[in-house]
């Protein structure tokens, strides 16, 4: 019962936070010069026999719904959003949600696949580093992890492109399909797509594996220093039994929490990676929408990101309570 109360309280709090986050984002977007409308008006005004720029501005401001004040405009947006209507994207001239459902698939699969690889690589390495603390292996792994965390994404992508696309010629520089995609049979079409996703996924794994590796190592170290591990060793259990049964299972608690917290992030897309590889996912589209000043799409994307972050925190906290029996009792 207590847990339920706690969850309800957290959810309500999250909703309040989300409301304010959306308000802040909306205010920022409205306070900035609405570059999109200005650009459209400027383009239209230069056409022959056209109205003046000011007249176009006035007309477009009304037709894009930007004539209301910030607060009333926000509530209109919120009311529509609560009914599941996020408006039409200016940049893509399509309903925001339709565009979103078109591009979320590839983002999700890309993130999901790279997440699987991350966990498969990070857990064994993190545990290895913790078991051999202060050894050469530990130093190598730790420094590699910090180096991965310090990698500027754009530089990494540039290097990967230089080596794998230009020098070795294994992959295409950008895009998700090759030029002869339409002529391939379904199996080879799938392979073609997969080949185009190799480098983006590799990039995603590399830039996020560092923090996970360190997280695993830190938690494993904490467990290994715990009294019950000493007891297990004192009992004369074999090292493999101590590690696999006693230590690793306890490390799983923070790991599962971490995993739960990062699940919503799978839908968030990868802004840089998708943009630099021109992968038509949510990150790519929102980058272009944001730099064009497309308010409905940006509003949706940012509120969605905030929602994912809140959901991640919530999930992590709930999972923590569910997984760890000690938390449940107290």
């Amino acid at each position, binding site marked *: 019962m207590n847990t339920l109360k706690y969850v309800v309280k957290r959810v309500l*709090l999250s909703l*309040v*936070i*989300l409301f*304010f*986050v959306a308000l*802040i*984002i909306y205010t*920022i*977007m409205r306070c*900035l*010069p609405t*570059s999109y409308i*200005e*650009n459209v008006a400027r383009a239209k005004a230069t056409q022959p026999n056209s109205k003046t720029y000011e007249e176009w501005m006035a007309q477009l401001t009304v037709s894009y719904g930007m004539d209301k004040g910030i607060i009333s405009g926000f509530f209109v947006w919120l009311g529509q959003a609560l009914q599941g209507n996020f408006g039409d994207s200016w940049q893509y001239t399509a309903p925001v949600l339709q565009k979103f459902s078109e591009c979320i698939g590839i983002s999700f699969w890309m993130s999901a696949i790279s997440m699987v690889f991350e966990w498969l690589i990070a857990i064994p390495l993190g545990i290895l580093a913790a078991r051999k603390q*202060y050894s050469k292996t530990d*130093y190598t792994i*730790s*420094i590699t992890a*910090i*180096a991965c*965390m*310090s*990698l*500027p*994404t*754009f*530089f990494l992508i*540039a*290097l990967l*492109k*230089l080596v794998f696309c*230009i020098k070795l010629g294994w992959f295409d*520089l950008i895009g998700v399909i090759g030029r002869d995609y339409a002529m391939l049979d379904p199996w080879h079409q799938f392979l073609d797509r997969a080949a185009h996703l190799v480098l983006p996924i590799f990039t995603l794994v590399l830039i996020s594996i560092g923090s996970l590796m360190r997280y695993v190592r830190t938690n494993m170290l904490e467990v290994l220093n715990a009294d019950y591990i000493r007891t297990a060793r004192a009992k004369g259990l074999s090292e493999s039994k101590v590690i696999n049964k006693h230590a690793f299972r306890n490390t799983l608690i923070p790991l599962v929490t971490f995993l739960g917290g990062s699940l919503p992030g799978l839908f968030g897309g990868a*802004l*840089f990676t998708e943009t630099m590889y021109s992968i038509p996912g949510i990150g790519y589209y*929102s*980058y272009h929408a*944001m*730099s*064009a*000043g497309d308010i409905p799409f*940006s509003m949706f*994307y*940012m509120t969605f*990101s*905030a929602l994912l*972050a*809140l959901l991640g925190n919530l999930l992590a906290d709930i999972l923590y309570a569910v997984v760890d029996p000690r938390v449940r009792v107290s």
Partner: protein
Amino acid sequence: MADNRKILTDEELESTKNVSENEEYSLNDDRRVKVLSPGAMVAKRFFRNRSAVFGIIVLILMFLFSFVGGMLSPYGESELFYREEFHQKEYASAVENKEFRYRGTDDFSAIIQAQMLLSINKGADSFEWMKETYTVVKEGEDLYTCLNSSGEMIGFGFKSIFNPAQQGAEPDLETLLAIQKAHAANQAGTFTAGGKTYTIDEDSNIFTESGEEFGYVSVYNVQPLMGDVFLSREFKEQVIEEIEAGVNEFVFTDVDGEEHEYKLEYVAANDRYTITQATATRVYDRYSAPSKEHPLGTDKNGMDVMTRLMYGGRVSLTIGFVVEILSTAIALVLGGISGYFGGWVDNLIMRIVDIFYCVPSMPILIIIGAAMDNASVPPKTRMIYLMLILGVLGWPGLARLIRGQILSLREQEFMTATEATGLSVKRRIFQHLIPNVIPQTIVSVTMGLGGTILTESSLSFLGLGVRFPFASWGNIINDINDTYVLQHYLFVWIPAGLLLLATVLAFNLVGDGLRDAFDPKMKR
């Protein structure tokens, strides 16, 4: 708080013994115990961490490189370099005239010219037009005259062109025909026309009686290709000579005695010779390879990459520090207040922190960057805005950390003691609470510096952060959006990326080392 004295390990005892061998202390003598201040202990632990020391060295080098290097560099941040570029400009063209040209009286109309050409091609010596018969007489190679039915010469067709020595001094019809005849005879000699006598030599140069040059006849027509060029007769003659000699290159000495090199090329597509001249143009020294003057070459604007890297480092480090100082100040004040006072103040501030924590920062930065682009904010103002925004977006995490720390410190005995001794709130916060959160703050700031530099460079890479003319490691790498640069001009973007990586890595290593060093639980 922490125990300032450290019981010496056996090893260290050994070494103290060696130093003061002749002094014997009793067992409970304080001098047997080496006293280290907490700071010294932290420093000791820190310097034992090899990767952290490596990080510190890298950072020192980076600071020297950026701040001192910028001063020592002989070039300015946005100093442009030029180079002379020689390229062959099309100068003139020479065409061998293969069409007949016509001159004649007014009766020699275009239709008659066409009829004459037809009969020449057929090999006929007369043709009829409008019930009148015209006679075509071959006067020499590629020279035909046309007579009307009454035997008067009304015009002639020719292929070789007479070029008068003086501009615009076109001879009359009779003289021209005489010249053409003399040329068609293809040998040196004299001829008269219009009461004047002319001499012609083997190269079809024509002189007047007094020996003045009158002009020359050639089947080649040489015309300038550049607008403001006048081709002298000597030049034209030489071109024709060179064409006939079949050379590819020649040197022409102009009136002022200057020598110019020309290339002669036959273009089959339009059946003409093109004469190109090597001309020097002053261009930006773009993407020049590393050399003595430019150790890392030049970039797309013709600026020295090495110098740009130094100034870029300055910009990146300065932005990192300003942003971190700003956000740490906010975090210390808000986190401190929140943790110390608790209650509704704490609740309010923590909810604000929650909200700010959830605002997606990268999208906000992109949107604001794009808006500033649109409003064409000057680069310097832009940089200041960037720092402010990054600072304002960066504080919530640290504020939460500080609040948590202060919350737990507040409950400890030494705080009760400060209250009991009647210290003022200000003193309690700034003298007793804040110093205790400094270690966490320093660690967080050090790690944050790396993160801020990454964010700044990512934005600059997208063209939404630091803008030209200011350099930043991010906007130096921006050149790779051109795949050709990515592939061929590695010297432009690889060093910037490596410096960036090294700096962020160093900050992270140092931060990591500091965290371990501050942690009293650390066993090593």
